[in-house]
């Protein structure tokens, strides 16, 4: 839909009953944000380039959407408010490949039924505009009116005749929050449209509509986040995902679109999360905007009246495609770099994250295999008994000794699990562990797995086991504790892959050297060598960075060297 040229207005007609009946029925206007959603989607469908949303009193006072789209013919304006009146489909077959956001012909009717609505519109190519005023679905006024090209929909006294819905509205701040998120998501979904949102006269969102997703993200988040985002562009998946160092506390920032339509799909969002495995803290979630380019006939949007839920013809393949695309982009993600501000200096010229391995000379895109590799490191010393300092060709590198060792052990333990070659250190002093009933059950049903790790447990009373051997990586002190935690983990319902990684992460965490452990130069260099050959040296299995790189270039700047 090239927004530069104006779409011609299309005729609106009421769908025949046979078609209308096939449409997923249900009320869509349950809160002010839903009004905003329907009106903005209509504007987008009308090819509008500039869309302005004004909200007062969290939508109870006013919701107004002004667009510069195709407009509506005067003779169609009141038709648009009838049930099943749409210009977007006309036959049942059309529903198999819907390319517009709307198609049900329900939204305007539903809104008009519960509010006072004024619509003013001028169709493309027409001299004058037309205006209708409706209340509770009935047309009160209709006539010629002056109007710029496009449409303005004004909704007042929302839910005035449905006190129940009014009562269910949340605090104004909450309703406003939902509206802001919704408009942000629409803006990200449609970077070629300029979206503005004004809450009580205050401009909250303003995107340029120049078609650049990164610029749109910068307008909604901040310039640094936008600059750090990794771009993805393959046949099916396009968009931006954050490097592992950027994350949020909720899943709300993983935005998945299907041909520009924001959908809520637990499983596909999980595909994105999966790509971060080992790079992400389990309670932190990615920032991502991904649009899936799927043939309209391979996706069914007629599942739920709000169209937030969709069905895919081949969800499994799609899951794998998304995960793979994200995974590839992430492995190209750069080594964590020390931010100048973190050193107590507010120097902002340097980007927070820049690839350590710039391929400026060759100009070639780094291959996935090389990009997250560490440069060759020469060990310099240990700081505060917690960090290792190393030197590389043109940078100072700080290493978190625990995180680094965790990464090394994690890989080792995974290999051992896969090769079914346990290394169970027999204990000179067997340890007794008390178990709760879920742990006992987990032990019974995971015997083979537990032994594959190197544990050897024998019953010692109904709720107690005696450990005779433990994974060789574990220090004696951690044995009983890790065993109990492992059983807790195994008691959870997990996929085999999740279980495999959770187990390795647990063992790695407890087997690794700790903060405060003094390391000999020999073991520290050994650790660096071992880290550099791991598959993901730049972060620990929990997703925290192992290494920070302070480029010499940046140091020079900090020391104000010419």
């Amino acid at each position, binding site marked *: 839909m090239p927004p530069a040229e104006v779409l011609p207005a299309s005729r609106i007609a009421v769908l025949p009953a046979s078609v209308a009946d096939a449409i997923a029925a249900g009320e869509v206007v349950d809160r002010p944000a839903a009004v905003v959603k329907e009106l903005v989607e209509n504007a987008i469908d009308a090819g509008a380039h500039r869309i302005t949303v004004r909200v007062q009193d969290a939508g109870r006072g006013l919701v107004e959407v002004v667009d510069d789209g195709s407009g509506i013919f005067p003779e169609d304006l009141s038709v648009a408010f009838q049930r099943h009146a749409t210009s977007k489909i006309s036959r049942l077959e059309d529903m198999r490949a819907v390319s517009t956001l709307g198609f049900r012909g329900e939204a305007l009717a539903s809104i008009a039924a519960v509010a006072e609505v004024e619509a003013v519109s001028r169709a493309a190519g027409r001299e004058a505009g037309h205006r209708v005023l409706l209340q509770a679905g009935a047309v009160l006024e209709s006539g010629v009116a002056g109007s710029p090209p496009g449409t303005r929909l004004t909704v007042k006294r929302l839910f005035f005749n449905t006190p129940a819905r009014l009562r269910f509205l949340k605090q104004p701040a909450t309703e406003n929050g939902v509206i802001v998120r919704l408009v942000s998501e629409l803006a990200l979904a449609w970077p070629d449209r300029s979206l503005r949102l004004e809450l009580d006269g205050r401009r909250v969102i303003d995107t340029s509509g120049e078609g650049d997703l990164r610029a749109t993200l910068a307008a909604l988040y901040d310039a640094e986040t936008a600059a750090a985002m990794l771009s993805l562009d393959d046949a099916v998946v396009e968009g931006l995902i954050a490097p592992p160092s950027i994350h949020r506390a909720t899943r709300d920032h993983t935005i998945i679109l299907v041909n520009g339509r924001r959908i809520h799909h637990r499983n596909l969002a999980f595909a994105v999360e999966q790509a971060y495995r080992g790079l992400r803290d389990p309670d932190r979630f990615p920032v991502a905007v991904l649009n899936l380019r799927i043939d309209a006939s391979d996706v069914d949007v007629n599942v739920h009246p709000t169209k937030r839920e969709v069905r895919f013809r081949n969800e499994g393949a799609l899951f794998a495609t998304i995960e793979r695309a994200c995974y590839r982009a992430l492995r190209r993600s750069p080594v964590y770099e020390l931010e100048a501000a973190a050193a107590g200096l507010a120097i902002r010229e340097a980007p927070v994250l820049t690839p350590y391995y710039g391929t400026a000379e060759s100009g070639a895109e780094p291959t996935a295999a090389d990009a997250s590799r560490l440069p060759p490191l020469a060990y310099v010393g240990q700081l505060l*008994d917690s960090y290792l300092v190393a030197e590389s060709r043109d940078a100072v590198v700080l290493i978190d000794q625990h995180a680094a060792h965790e990464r090394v052990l994690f890989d*080792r333990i995974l*290999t*051992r699990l896969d*090769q*079914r*070659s*346990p*290394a*169970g*250190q*027999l*204990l*000179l*002093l067997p340890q007794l562990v008390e178990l709760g009933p879920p742990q006992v059950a987990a032990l019974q049903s995971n015997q083979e797995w537990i032994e594959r790790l*190197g544990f*050897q447990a024998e019953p010692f009373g109904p709720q107690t086991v005696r450990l005779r*051997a433990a994974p*060789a*990586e574990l*220090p*004696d*002190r*951690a044995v009983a504790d890790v065993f109990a935690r492992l059983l807790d983990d195994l008691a959870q319902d997990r996929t085999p892959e999740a279980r495999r990684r959770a187990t390795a992460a647990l063992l790695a965490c407890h087997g690794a050297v700790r903060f405060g452990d003094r390391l000999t130069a020999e073991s520290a260099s*050994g650790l660096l060598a*071992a880290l550099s*050959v791991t598959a993901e040296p730049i972060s620990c299995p929990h997703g925290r960075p192992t290494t920070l790189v302070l480029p010499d270039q940046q140091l020079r700047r900090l020391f104000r060297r010419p």
Partner: protein
Amino acid sequence: MRLTCSAGVLGQGLHVVSRAVSSRTTLPILNNVLMQTADNGLQLTATNLEIGIRQTIPAQVQEEGGITVPARLLTDFVTSHPEEPLTMSLDKKTQSLSLKSARFDATIRGIDPADFPPVPAGVDGRKVKVDQTGLREAIEQTVIAASTDEGRPVLTGVYVQLNGGKATLAATDGHRLAVKTLAVEAEAGETDTIVVPARALTELGRILKTGEERIDVTVGAQKNQVFFKTGDVELMSRLIEGTYPNYQQVIPAQSTTTITTKTQDLLFTTKMVSLFSKDAANVIKFKTEGGKLTLTANTSEVGQNVAGVDAKIDGQDLQVAFNSKYLLDVLAILGTEEVQLGFTGPLNPGIIRPVGKDDYLYIIMPVRVAM
């Protein structure tokens, strides 16, 4: 305070006591060494609150007194100083110590000795005399097995049992165990058991000389301190509280396979082979078959190394794996030409002894692997 002493002698004394100076402490005075005049010279004392070391060096005292000064600075100054007399005097008002010699005139700011934690000059308790050489060897052979992990404090110590004319020292980190017996001359009394921090014994080992001279040990009557005195050096350590695990039951009574071989040869071969086990929890495999011993280590990513060792093998064929570090540690301090390893299968404790001596044994717990 005013005195003259030799820079060389002072340097040696500082070298001994500064082993007890904390390297990291939030209490600045613990970075200092206490210097006090005594009847026969100058007394140097340092402590990290766990152990304290004191040495008296000869000095001509003109005026009594004491001061504490940063151990590091003083040691660096004195040990770099030419072997000449040094005159020290204290300016009490500024608490600064001046050090004068033919060419140097230095002043070091100090801290009032009243703030220095007390390091007792001895304790009341049962007195024991031990041969220095024997004790040094016993320390070397046991501290290797002590844990370095503060998680179970009692295992960071060496268990000492005094029973008649015999002392038994034992240490374990939960994966291996070292037990040494030693003849002592003790005051009559009941069986005494204490747990001495391995770190304290390591420091004591450095101080001990090889010689006929015996060392005086006093186990504090409160069982919370032990006191060692050899010549002009004293070391005091607090003891670790807690019940030491019953390690006796772990020691196997007999073996079904015994391997006798040259200690140095086995040490060398184990070192070579274990280069290939660094990435695999240091696991190394022993295999006896047809009177031959083979050592193997492999890591999928690194490669493998297999080596044969000349050995005399009795009993059943066997395959057993363990952490090579535990074996290397003991072979390095065994002190006899030949070593004997005894096993009763791949999942039972292995026992290592010096051939020709029955005062030492070392238990090593195998690692269970897919053979």
